[in-house]
């Protein structure tokens, strides 16, 4: 390899590095936001029975764990949220007092989660993280469909 080639390769690496770092910063921010939403959803569903869904609180706990693993792979972490930090949709579900209210609140929460995951999928840069997050988008899209099944008869 000639000196000029070596220099060109080093220069290319140096130019690419900031872009990669920016992408990782962006991915970290997205992951932290999703972790907070999932922690809120897991807390809100805890102990609730919704006929259309099976173990949503446990599923969301799995999501939190997976998202934290991805975040650790980017050399970062997330502080768990407190009950006061629950987002409005999760709080509404947690505080719902009737079955109808719970059902309506769950649809709102799942719709917001699908939207949040869709935005995440559009913004993520790391392929492995993108694919992991896409499976969680699919999970919440399934729940939304099951909760609103009456709207689309097969």
């Amino acid at each position, binding site marked *: 390899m000639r000196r000029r080639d070596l220099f060109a390769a080093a220069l290319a690496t140096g130019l690419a590095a900031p872009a990669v770092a920016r992408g990782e910063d962006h991915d970290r921010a997205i992951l932290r936001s999703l972790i907070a939403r999932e922690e809120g959803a897991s807390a809100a569903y805890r102990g609730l029975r919704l006929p259309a869904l099976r173990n949503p609180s446990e599923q969301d706990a799995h999501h939190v764990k997976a998202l934290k693993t991805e975040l650790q792979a980017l050399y970062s972490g997330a502080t768990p949220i407190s009950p006061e930090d629950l987002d409005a949709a999760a709080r509404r579900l947690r505080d719902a007092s009737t079955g109808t209210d719970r059902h309506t609140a769950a649809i709102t929460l799942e719709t917001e989660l699908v939207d949040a995951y869709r935005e995440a999928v559009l913004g993520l840069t790391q392929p492995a993280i993108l694919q992991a997050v*896409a499976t969680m988008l*699919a999970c919440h899209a*399934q729940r939304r469909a099951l909760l609103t099944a009456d709207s689309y008869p097969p």
Partner: protein
Amino acid sequence: MVNRRALVLGGGAALLAAGCGKDIVVAPPPAEPALLRSLAAERALGTTMAALGKPRLAQRSRERATQLAAALSELGARPHDAPAPEAQADIAAGLGRSRAVLEAYVAALPSLHGSGRELGADLLAQAAGDVALLASSFGFVPDDPFPGTPG
């Protein structure tokens, strides 16, 4: 003034530093084969939904296939290269083809950018909802937290 030796030394240091970070970077697959796989999986699911007596779900699957075919044509690929498998009227096949279509959409996403990524995300979300409805109509409530995880 920086001489050549200093530049080369600096470059070498940069290369070494780059080598100390993430060690595996897998290039995403090209978009065309990934979308062709999604199209083949969607066609297979659609024929099975129709055979299982779910015309509304089958129609929505066909609509997704049409969108995929249009995206492939825009890329200069040939949608007809995606096979159209025969219908299988049993729920086991339906569940298998459901898994396959979600896996194909998830696998395709890293190769898609901009409006292609938006299309991929929307098709994944819609297909996920429809396969959940298909499964639940046969008494299977989906409980996988990560549907579509590439096998």
